[in-house]
């Protein structure tokens, strides 16, 4: 492929690719972002609902524990509960229904531990300095943050104050932190999700699964977390992307945090995106391959057509030059023919007038005679040149007419009809009546038919017979000119179409008739063939294609 066409092919490929792929990519991106937006919104909503449910469940859990302790404290007396075995009985009853209390104690208004049931040796401890004690004495009901206390392990307590009359005392229970942690973690989502509680001071109240222990500092800026339930996308200080729901408990200033790994949550979306990308890449490859293939094929065909057209143009220009050359030659030949004829006749007249007497007796008589003969010979030479020029001019300019073959044949015959009759030659016409009109050069066909008829007429003697026939034969019209003359000897059959080949007596034929006819028929897309049996005559066939 030439540079110009390669550039054209590249440009076509580029434009087609842009036109084909840009809308595809835009549509794909549009669809992806639209659905991923919907999907993410849905995820956030689900997370919000989950946070709402879990925060309610945790609130309910704490409310129930508080309520049962309140009922117990209000309906019992200090004395009843501090009786030996009484508290154990109550504790057993409570935990039978898996109330998840770790221990239970009764503390008087001075902070002394009056009775205790639980795994730790906490009897006789004095809590008058403990913050939870003072809070409970002040408010009546208290849920503590997680703290270490006397036992030295993280826990939190629920305490209620009995304040009937002047004697007030406190019923206090520690919540089983395993149970509470399990409850909080039940909000956890997926393999990489997390859920935990942080207090208002930013300390973990339940242990997170990743990146921290209970009571350690959480990396959240607690002031920036608004009240209520919020779902945000955030990046942790160690670079993890998280989708997080924050939900404040209503009764306690604890924050439930539910972290979700968006990659996990958006798994189906990511899979869909990867599938879409794969389909897109595949489609792009297919489209690109088709476009490149088609563009190259089109341009190659275009190049081929251009090449053919320029070849045709060159040929037409060449033919055009030949035609104008031919016209000029014909003009020159016409102009020469008249004076040439005059020269020939004038010299001929002088030649006629020089008799034997003049030739012998005049001092230059022989020279006169000789030169006049030479002048006529040269006139003959020029004549053959001008006649050839006229024929050449005619052949250079084929003209297509709608031609009725039979009519042309009849005309050619009428041209020689009188001569044939004078010679005593019978001419038969066997013309087929169902011939189509042909698009061909009428005058050149006439020339061919005349040449063949002339030859036939020359070939037969008086009493001879010539048959002119036409017929239609698969895709062509065949005209035959048959004579019953001596035929063409075997040894010259190969050269009858050669230029200047003749069997006529010297001066009778130019030897060009058949050769010119042959080249005319080739130019018209047809051909001339012959059959001849020496002694029985010859038949020439002119094949003219119908299309």
């Amino acid at each position: 492929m030439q540079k110009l066409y390669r550039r054209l092919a590249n440009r076509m490929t580029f434009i087609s690719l842009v036109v084909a792929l840009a809308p595809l990519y835009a549509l794909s991106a549009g669809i992806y972002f639209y659905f991923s937006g919907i999907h993410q919104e849905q995820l956030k909503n689900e997370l919000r609902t989950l946070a709402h449910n879990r925060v309610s469940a945790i609130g309910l859990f704490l409310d129930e524990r508080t309520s049962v302790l309140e009922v117990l404290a209000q309906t019992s007396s200090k004395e009843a509960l501090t009786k030996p075995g009484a508290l154990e009985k109550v504790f057993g009853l409570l935990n039978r229904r898996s109330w998840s209390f770790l221990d239970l104690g009764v503390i008087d208004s001075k902070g002394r531990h009056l009775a205790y049931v639980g795994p730790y040796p906490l009897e006789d401890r004095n809590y008058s300095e403990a913050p939870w004690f003072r809070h409970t004495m002040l408010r009546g009901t208290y849920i503590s943050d997680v703290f270490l206390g006397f036992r030295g392990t993280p826990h939190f307590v629920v305490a209620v104050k009995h304040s009937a009359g002047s004697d007030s005392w406190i019923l206090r229970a520690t919540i089983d932190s395993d149970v509470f942690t399990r409850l909080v973690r039940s909000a956890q989502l997926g393999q990489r999700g997390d859920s935990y509680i942080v207090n208002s001071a930013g300390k973990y109240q339940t242990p997170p699964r990743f990146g921290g222990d209970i009571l350690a500092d959480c990396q959240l800026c607690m002031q920036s977390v608004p009240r209520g339930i919020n779902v945000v996308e955030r990046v942790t200080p160690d670079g993890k992307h998280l989708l997080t729901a924050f939900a404040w408990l209503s009764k306690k200033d604890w924050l439930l945090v539910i972290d979700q790994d968006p990659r996990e949550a958006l798994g189906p979306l990511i899979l869909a995106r990867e599938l879409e990308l794969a389909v897109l890449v595949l489609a792009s490859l297919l489209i690109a391959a088709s476009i490149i293939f088609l563009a190259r094929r089109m341009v190659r065909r275009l190049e081929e057509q251009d090449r053919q057209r320029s070849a045709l143009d060159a040929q037409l220009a060449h033919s055009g030059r030949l035609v104008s050359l031919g016209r000029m030659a014909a003009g020159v030949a016409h102009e020469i023919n008249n004076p040439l004829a005059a020269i020939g006749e004038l010299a001929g007249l002088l030649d006629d007038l020089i008799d034997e007497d003049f030739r012998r007796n005049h001092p230059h008589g022989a020279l006169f005679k000789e030169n006049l003969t030479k002048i006529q010979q040269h006139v003959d030479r020029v004549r053959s040149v001008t006649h050839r020029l006229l024929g050449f001019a005619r052949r250079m300019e084929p003209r297509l007419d709608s031609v009725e073959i039979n009519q042309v044949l009849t005309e050619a015959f009428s041209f020689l009809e009188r001569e044939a009759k004078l010679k005593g030659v019978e001419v038969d016409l066997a013309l087929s009546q169902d011939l189509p009109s042909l698009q061909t050069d009428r005058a050149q066909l006439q020339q061919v038919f005349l040449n063949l008829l002339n030859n036939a007429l020359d070939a037969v003697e008086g009493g001879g017979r010539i048959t002119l026939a036409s017929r239609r034969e698969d895709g062509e019209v065949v005209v035959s000119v048959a004579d019953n003359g001596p035929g063409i000897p075997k040894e010259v059959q190969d050269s009858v179409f050669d230029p200047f080949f003749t069997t006529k007596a010297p001066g009778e034929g130019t030897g060009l008739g058949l050769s010119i006819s042959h080249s005319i028929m080739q130019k018209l897309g047809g051909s001339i063939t012959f059959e001849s049996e020496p002694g029985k005559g010859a038949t020439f066939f002119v094949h003219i294609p119908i299309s």
Partner: protein
Amino acid sequence: MDSFNVLVVDDEKDFLQALVARLGLRKLNAVGVENGLAALEHLERAPVDVVVLDLKMPGMDGLEVLGEIKRRRPGVEVVILTGHGSVESGMEGVSRGAFAYLVKPVKLDELMEKIVKAYEWKRMNQELPPNDSD
């Protein structure tokens, strides 16, 4: 061979005179005129058997003269002899009734042959009256 009357029509004066003289030397009663009108006038006045006719002439064109001759004297045969030859004009001439068609310059023997054949044709047609009617 009998002597018969030939009329040569050609606007090329030198050619005309030389040809008429040469035909005369060959025992023909040849007369030359330089245009079609003169030819038709001569045809009215004198007997003519064969006309040798040029095609391209000032005034009346050769084909017109041919048509006029054939109209007035159908028996007179015409041999066309022209310098502007082509197959088409030859066909045209023959289809309008010319006996033969030759392109200048022509050898006198060839021309004589055609003239004699034309004369023989004329005589043959006169011997067969029904054919002379066209």
